[in-house]
């Protein structure tokens, strides 16, 4: 173990690394139906996948710039909110990612 790194630090780093790849999949899956950032965060948190705002919004922008999401600003409850949903390309990619996730999960089940 590198000096100055405790086992809890090490676990935290590995946990974050493991989680990072799953976040995009979780976000894409939640955007099959249209949501804005705050409700998306709440939906993910209720499903056990907490994500803070400074991680979610940059991720949403990246996914949108990659063409996987589309967004629009709309007024709701007298406030401007940005609503996101999957683009047609996002739907196709999500399908492939879900299949890949299931394959990895099945492999890990066997290994673990």
């Amino acid at each position, binding site marked *: 173990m590198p000096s100055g790194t405790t086992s809890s630090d090490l676990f935290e780093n590995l946990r974050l690394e493991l989680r990072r790849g799953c976040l995009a999949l979780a976000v894409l899956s939640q955007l099959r139906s249209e949501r*804005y*950032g*705050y409700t998306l965060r709440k939906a993910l948190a209720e499903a056990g996948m907490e994500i*803070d*705002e*400074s991680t979610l*919004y940059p991720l949403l*922008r990246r996914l949108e710039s990659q063409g996987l999401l589309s967004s629009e*600003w709309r007024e709701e409850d007298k406030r401007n909110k*940005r609503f996101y949903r999957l683009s047609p390309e996002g739907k196709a990619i999500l399908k492939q990612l879900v299949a890949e996730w299931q394959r990895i999960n099945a492999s890990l089940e066997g290994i673990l």
Partner: protein
Amino acid sequence: MDLLDRYLEAVKFWLPKAQRRDIIAELNEDLRSQIEEKESQLGRKLEGKEVEAILKRCGSPLAVATRYLPQQYLIGPTLFPLYRFVMVVVLAGCIVPRVLIWLGFLLASPAHSGYLHMENLWSTIIFFGFFTTLAFAIFERSGVNVAGVVDFNPQKLPPIRHPNRISRSSSLIEIAAMLIFAGWFISLFWPRPTLHLYGVQVTVTPVWTMLFAGIMTVTLVNLAVACVNLAHPFWTRRRLTIHLFSDAAGGLLFYLFLRSQVVLALAIPGVEPAKAAVLTRFINSWFATLVPYTVAVLLAIVAVDVYRIVRLGRSSLTPVVGMQAGGMKCV
């Protein structure tokens, strides 16, 4: 909401202009929704400390803004190990000779040790450090195939070389060089009161006999070591120790040669004796000025020899990849 506005303003400062409005509007909406939800749970307005806690959890303005920015670096992770290696070599090249020369002056001529301005060292380090970094930043952006990083070819990998192996060619070159040197040195510098060097008569002090014997002894020892190296091409502790002592003795003899004002007089055809005497004094004083530099070189040579002995001790404990056990014959 003053605190929230100040927070958003601070985040905005670090964001790229084109995206500022959009990002801040979205972040503002999220943070206000969090505050409102908390207020509806508590049934009252949030206090300053409670808003502060929400903002603290969100992160510092710079950290939040950084997550929206593309990853930027001067030298990327692929080139960085090479950059670090080159930087260490460059900085060692700047520092080590300077320190050795300073040590040489300190040991040989303490009165003149202030002669070297160590403050110049900082400007040298900054100069070379800056241009090394600049070169690597250019490589990073231009995609130049530095050290095969971009277009890697396994066939071009260097062969495995045992660190203590002595190549036969270097032993042969050393033997030839020693023999040529010994022949040349004996024919020209055999001890006698007056040496005849290419038409110039050089009268030397009696100390030359001792210096000659010492230089010849060191040459013969080195010749013997080179012959053994040719037959058994791996360094051993014994041979490295002999090498260390012969190098140290050679350096010491050269040091004594420079300090002993060995040239008594010169007789040059067509040159008046008075001018020859001036030239003699000049040669002796010039030899004396070389003393600190000789000490510096001697220290460097001894340091390299000691390092080789230490490395030999280490390598005997660590197996070398591709080298079979028992593949080394040592004497």
